[in-house]
């Protein structure tokens, strides 16, 4: 192989083949998908998110949640995701239309979060868990995100968004409260919005066991 142009052509064409198959094709086939209308409520599948939840995606990205948590529900027999209750059906391309970036994840150091909003709809639970995970699940290895919260003296009466039922070494002493800062509120709004349990024709629900 002594000719530069020949080498270049081969290098280019082999590269172009995968570029067409794994880059151009998904861009064309999946990149222009639209949400489907929801006839029952007038909304759409996937449902739109509040502005706070969209901002929460930035916080999720900045703090690297995806390095421990995936967001994909897979089918049997490849996995037992559905049987374990991670979701009622396989997640498909349309489920991620509103995600930016798409947090598919490749590790489950912690549980999958595709439907965490359905499993744990209570915002205060999420705040307590982010603030100090081991007060909610004592064997958890999730790091604490208390740097997203402020501990301050109660002015008059407790703030509306103060965290309730905090225990453990970082619980506020009497007369003090812990409030989420804007990032924590956005992150929890995002987590609570994570539900992929609406129906999609391309992802039929397997018969219940």
């Amino acid at each position: 192989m002594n000719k530069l142009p020949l080498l270049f052509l081969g290098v280019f064409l082999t590269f172009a083949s995968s570029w067409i198959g794994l880059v151009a094709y998904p861009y064309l086939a999946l990149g222009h998908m639209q949400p489907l209308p929801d006839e029952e409520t007038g909304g759409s599948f996937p449902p739109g998110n509040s502005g706070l939840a969209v901002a929460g995606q930035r916080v999720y990205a900045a703090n690297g949640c995806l390095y421990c948590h995936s967001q994909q529900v897979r089918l049997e027999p490849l996995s037992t995701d559905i049987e374990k209750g991670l979701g009622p059906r396989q997640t498909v391309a349309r489920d991620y239309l509103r995600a930016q970036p798409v947090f598919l994840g490749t590790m489950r150091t912690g549980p999958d979060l595709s439907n965490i909003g359905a499993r744990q709809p209570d915002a205060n639970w999420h705040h307590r868990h982010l603030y100090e995970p081991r007060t909610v699940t004592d064997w958890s290895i999730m790091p604490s995100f208390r740097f997203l919260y402020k501990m301050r003296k109660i002015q008059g009466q407790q703030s509306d968004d103060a965290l309730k039922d905090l225990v453990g070494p970082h619980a506020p002493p009497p007369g003090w409260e812990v409030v989420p800062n804007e990032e924590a509120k956005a992150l929890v709004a995002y987590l609570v919005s994570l539900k992929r349990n609406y129906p999609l024709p391309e992802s039929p629900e397997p018969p219940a066991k």
Partner: protein
Amino acid sequence: MTPTDEGPKENESDIARIHGAILREHAEPRDGYEPIPLWLVGLFFGIMFWAGLYLAYFSGGFRADVFNPSETAWAGGGVPQPVGPVDPKLAGKRVFTRNCVVCHQTTGLGVVGQFPPLAGSEWVLGHDWHGDNHLVKILLKGLQGPVQIKGATFNNAMPTWAQLSDEQIASVLTYIRSQWGNAAPPISPDYVKKIRGRTADRTEPWTQKDLQAIPPEKLPVAGAEGDSSPATPQSDSKI
């Protein structure tokens, strides 16, 4: 010979110093010309054959809307349709998954000490003092205070689901009555509508005691959609 940045004298001594390591080197690498072993070629063709078979079986017809590699043909049509009228049982399952699973769980077993089970529950099946009307009433107004289910006591608060439509309430109750080994008659949307009308004035959630005071109603079995007249006369004057 391309000139270097350094002057000729430094260049010489530089090169002389480096010489030591380089002088003892072998010549630059060169190629030998042994042929490719035949068994390797055979192996390659074997792998390519396997590859072809794999792609034929597990590519879902090379369609963009087939996400399950085990599906070789999908009868759903080319363009995904908006969700149309569906099997009532599937509709019930959807309502359940979106609203009830968080407490009662996908298994219908609830959470010990916190959320009551639905599987095998006398409340759902209509055993003992429980009637179809009680079940519908719970969904419409909620339930609070201590309750006994399958011998265990629960003391939690179930919210009202009156915001769901009659069809949705009927379908989810029908669903829970036919899941997890449960077998009890379906509930019709008309019946839900009737109970909703009857209980329109009540604002408080029910307690077990309240419900026990109301005589149970059991509907006729099997698909009598339009027939919502109860088998026993009603006496709901205490609502």
